[in-house]
């Protein structure tokens, strides 16, 4: 399969878009057929739609793709790819309506019938779980609720303008949550630059290189609820990196190191 096919040429695509022509290639259909073979497809589509898609993506000859093309290592196992709540919630978001939600928290308590503005559905590739990001109208706080903790959701129909009137509050809260940290690559590990940058490639970042001292500094931008994951990545890289700006992260790394070290001062049980 040639991914750089001329049918995907940018000028051609733009021209066809203006004319309302959307050609789907047999490679794309073959990919779709491969993905439809995943058991989760049955959870995502209505049975009739799934049957229709199976029929429409049947590739005549031997072009069907092999299942085991790649070996995947260090993969996080997903309990299930999809959640039955994604579909209804996605439509409520699209319809710009409110929700009445009953959900538990990880710590236990259940909050009943709270009214809120659903914003986005987020999938974490590290945890393989779905989350709903929504604005709680009574507390006016942006909340991230794992879908598996949601007991019920009802749609409350409202005018689009009203839904939209909450968007500035949401983006303001997101802005407020933004954090910044500077992480320096310890110079003796400069040869591992690529690996270190790959480990941070899932974050919004800038990198500075001082050609005099040959030191690389990564400036990470992240949301406050990502702090734990950032910390686990910093520990993951061990001696290669050092937090040089962000007191909270430094503090936590000092604690981690102290507590971890305490585990090794005695002989194992």
């Amino acid at each position, binding site marked *: 399969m040639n*991914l750089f096919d001329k049918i995907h040429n940018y000028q051609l695509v733009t021209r066809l878009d203006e004319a309302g022509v959307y050609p789907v290639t047999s490679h794309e259909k073959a990919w779709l057929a491969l993905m439809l073979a995943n058991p989760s497809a049955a959870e995502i589509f209505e049975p009739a739609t799934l049957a229709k898609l199976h029929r429409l993506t049947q590739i005549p000859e031997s072009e069907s793709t092999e299942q085991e093309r790649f070996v995947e*290592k260090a*993969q996080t196992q997903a309990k299930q790819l999809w959640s039955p709540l994604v579909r209804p919630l996605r439509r409520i978001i699209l319809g710009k309506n409110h929700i009445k939600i009953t959900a538990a928290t990880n710590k236990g308590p259940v909050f009943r019938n709270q009214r809120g503005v659903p914003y986005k559905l987020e999938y974490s590739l590290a945890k393989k779980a779905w989350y709903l990001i929504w604005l709680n109208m009574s507390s006016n706080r942006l909340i991230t609720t794992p879908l598996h903790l949601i007991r019920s959701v009802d749609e409350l129909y409202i005018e689009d303008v009203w839904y939209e009137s909450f968007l500035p509050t949401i983006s303001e809260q997101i802005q407020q949550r933004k954090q910044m940290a500077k992480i320096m690559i310890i110079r003796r590990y400069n040869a591992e630059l690529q690996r270190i940058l790959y480990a941070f490639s*899932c974050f919004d970042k800038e990198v500075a290189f001082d050609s005099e001292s040959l030191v690389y500094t990564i400036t990470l931008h992240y949301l406050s609820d990502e702090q734990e994951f950032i910390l686990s990545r910093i520990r993951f890289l*061990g001696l290669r990196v050092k937090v040089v700006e962000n007191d909270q992260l430094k503090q936590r790394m*000092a604690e981690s190191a*102290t507590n971890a070290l305490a585990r090794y001062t005695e002989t194992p049980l």
Partner: protein
Amino acid sequence: MARESFDKELQLLRLLFLTAGAYNRQQLAERLGISVHTLDKTIKKLKDIQSTFYQHVGDEEKKEYYAQLRYNYFEVTDNFLMFLYHAKSLKDSEVERLSHILEKLRHQPLSIKDLLDTFVDTEPDEKTIRQDMKYLEEVGVIKNVSEVRPYVYQFDGELLDSLTDDELLDLYDFTDFMANTQLPAVPGYLLQEKVKRYLKYRLKLTDASAFLYKYHFVSRILDEYQALLLTEAIRQRKIVEFHYYTPKRRKFYDSQNTNPAFQRDTSGRHQKVIPLRVIFDHQYGRWYLLAQGCGNGPLRKYRVEGMTKLVTGKSVTPEIFSSLQASADERITHSWLIDTGKLVTVRLRFFQPRDTPHSFIKERVEAQGQWGIVTEESRESFVYEINVNSTMEITPWIRSFGSSVEVLEPLFLRKQFQKEWEELLAYYESV
């Protein structure tokens, strides 16, 4: 059709994405092994494609050529590295012709002769049109609907046209989700882009996105091109040749000199191997190739990102190939990633989190611990055991748990952890 290689563009995009702003033009050009002039030309080309394709990119962002390459997942969910796959160059006349043909056939089925008549100003010759039709039929976007000559062709738009609005939205969500979470992804992103444009056209939906993806290694798509070529070579048991730049080198590419008078040795090492497995590492989001050196060479491991000028050669006999593949598979059965070192038993004690009924440490170990097993368990802690090829690749994962884990065995690893935490504490002691 001319073979085009996107090695240079791929390496440039990767460098811009990974090192986000670290290098100036001169340094970028040096690392790519090209002249500043070539660098400027390549960047201009990429910017053109990007701005034609993503018209919503603001002027401010266009100025900073790497601004769009930032991973801004809370606002943008499009995989912005995708535009590279639209980079295939075409002559204006070809763009004109192909779009004309597809527009006409979208409207009604036509024979080649009828089609020729629809060109008003400049009528292309019949041979050219036949070639175009052959190509379009090959990629599956048009089909022959007549049983006898003259052949009548029709646009194949059934997949999208036959879906209801609601089904279309489900298809969009499905492609979005699968492209972002499964391998391979590029054909999925291409399809998603199409469905998105179609949704906009049919439902007047300007913003259909409702999903966000956290901790997504978006750059993995840059190597998918090569990964798919390699899996194809494996399927056909074909030898591959390429130039290899190890990631520790300062250079990632070298210009190809077409003039033999200026021919020089490239700094990449030439490799000729039998490809056996393509491996994706979720820990860093990178691709590897496991291959056998030709002529009884050792088992080799390559990072796909360091490969350029990949070509396929002769086939290997099925017997030799399957025996090589079976032995390679055996050697990576216990690789955390791709290590083929000596087998070690690693025993770890994980401590349950305090003050919460939610055992997220256990959940994480179960989800990410690959083939390891929990052997002992109490309310406070549990023991996890795994046989793994050397401890090098599993170490970062263990360390990421911080003080929630204690290495019990092997003893050398336990000592190594103790030493590392001592040194790490020194990094932060003044806090």
